[in-house]
């Protein structure tokens, strides 16, 4: 059974339909790229998967999102357990107002890792996994906001990893970065898919082609087409997908 199953997911913002009857299964341990032009519901879809959509004014969500068989849209869902399992990386790196060390250690500390040595090891391990350790090991207690934007995004990734999620949602995670930082983050995703299920939103076709194992193509709130990346890119079945891939729309 796949980790994430979406059934008839519909999201309305004050009557306007942002997502319409989306049903799809997201494969485990792969990079699923959510593709489509701006404003087609990609981010809305992503925010349903960790219920961050709850924070959006006027959003009304219907349908089912099953994660490990449990409908997380049910009102009695334990959001802490859900969000611990399903981590998120935002579009613009958003460090927390604390030191580099604390940014990584903080989540884990709140989730019960209180031993100083264990925390130190965790911070080192997470920072190494995002290839940031060598750049910051001498200034772990400096404010995180002093890092460059590219470093901040990797720190945000390390921070998510420290909570030990199983799924990582990434909302256009490289769009605010310079090309070199963006490339480094992309390389990280390849390493991470060994251990995590990644769902990555992008509106750049080239990035989708580089990263995707599986593709969901959204257009105007509708899941137009989904399938293995190779298949979708080489033989798109829907007219709109073809138009998007050819650069006619989007």
């Amino acid at each position, binding site marked *: 059974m796949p980790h994430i199953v979406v059934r008839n997911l519909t999201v309305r913002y004050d009557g306007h339909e942002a997502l319409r009857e989306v049903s799809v299964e997201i494969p485990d341990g792969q990079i699923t790229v959510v593709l489509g032009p701006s404003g087609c519901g990609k981010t809305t879809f992503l925010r349903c998967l960790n219920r961050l959509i709850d924070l959006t004014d006027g959003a009304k969500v219907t349908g089912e999102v099953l994660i490990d068989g449990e409908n997380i849209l049910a009102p009695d869902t334990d959001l802490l357990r859900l*969000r611990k399992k399903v981590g998120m990386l935002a579009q613009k790196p*958003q460090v927390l*107002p604390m030191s580099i060390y604390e940014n990584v250690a903080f989540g884990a500390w709140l989730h019960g890792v209180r031993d100083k040595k264990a925390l130190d090891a965790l911070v080192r391990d997470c920072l190494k996994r995002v290839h940031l350790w060598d750049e910051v090991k001498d200034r772990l207690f400096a404010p995180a906001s002093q890092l460059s934007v590219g470093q901040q995004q990797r720190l945000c990734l390390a921070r998510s990893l420290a909570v030990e999620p199983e799924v990582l949602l990434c909302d256009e995670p490289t769009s605010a970065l310079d090309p070199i930082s963006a490339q480094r983050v992309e390389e990280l995703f390849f390493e991470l898919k060994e251990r995590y299920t990644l769902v990555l939103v992008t509106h750049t076709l080239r990035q989708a082609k580089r990263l995707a194992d599986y593709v969901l193509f959204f257009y105007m709130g509708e899941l137009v087409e989904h399938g293995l990346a190779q298949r979708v890119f080489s033989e798109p079945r829907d007219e709109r997908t073809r138009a998007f891939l050819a650069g006619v729309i989007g």
Partner: protein
Amino acid sequence: MGELTWRHCKEALMQGTMVTAATLLFGSLLTLLAVVTVKGWQGMSWAMLVRLPKSGSYLGGEGGILNAIVGSLLLAVGATLLALCLALPVALLLQPDYAGRTKFAQFLRLLLNLLWGVPSIVYGACGFALLVALGWRACLLGGIIALTFVELPIMVRAMDEALRMVPKAMKEAAYSLALTRWETMRHVVVRQALPGLVTAVLLAFGRGIGDAASVLFTAGYTDNLPRSLFDPVASLPVAVFFLLNSPFAEVQRQAYAAAFVLLVLVLLVSVLTRLLAARLSRYLVR
């Protein structure tokens, strides 16, 4: 005149208006400060600061205003601490994460704006009525409670604004890490909003220590230092009021000295708190 010239003229005119307004404002404030400083300095002596009034003080004799200095500090610090204990939870409740999006929050904000506009003599009168009902006399505790209500609306509204300035994305980052609302507030929002929160406390303290009307009936006035919360207590604004009413020039100079002390106290507290906040806001994300 061409359209372009007219737009340049308007730009110059508007900038002129802004600079004039600012000059008028700073000019009058500086004049006020200068008057208080010069006149206050004349009446100032070491004895003023460290001595209690003597029986002849109000006729131009010896004695100081230590009673009012200590009283004002006790009143304002007490009220600010008490107000802080109430204002922060209320300001947090007003955030969209809690009740901020409800009608209740809108109503509460409206009420606070209204309370902000209530003259402090009204708080004094209500406080006095309460004291009478309780069978107490005017005392330090009564003054602290009345001042707390004077300070609360400013503090809550200023804190509300400061907390709402924290970027939504930052809160979402915290929620994505599976933090509860309280953990998000406690560890992320309050930290990020700290300079604004400090400003809120300072604004409230400034209003509290400078207010005469609310403590006039509730804290009373005395030449002695209070020994307990239930003793009457003097305060600088009330001292200024009394001393300035005196026909003796000597005593009037003391009034200016008291006003000067009040200014210096507010300045000292502001500077110290700012320094503290600067140390604590090292990790702020700008």
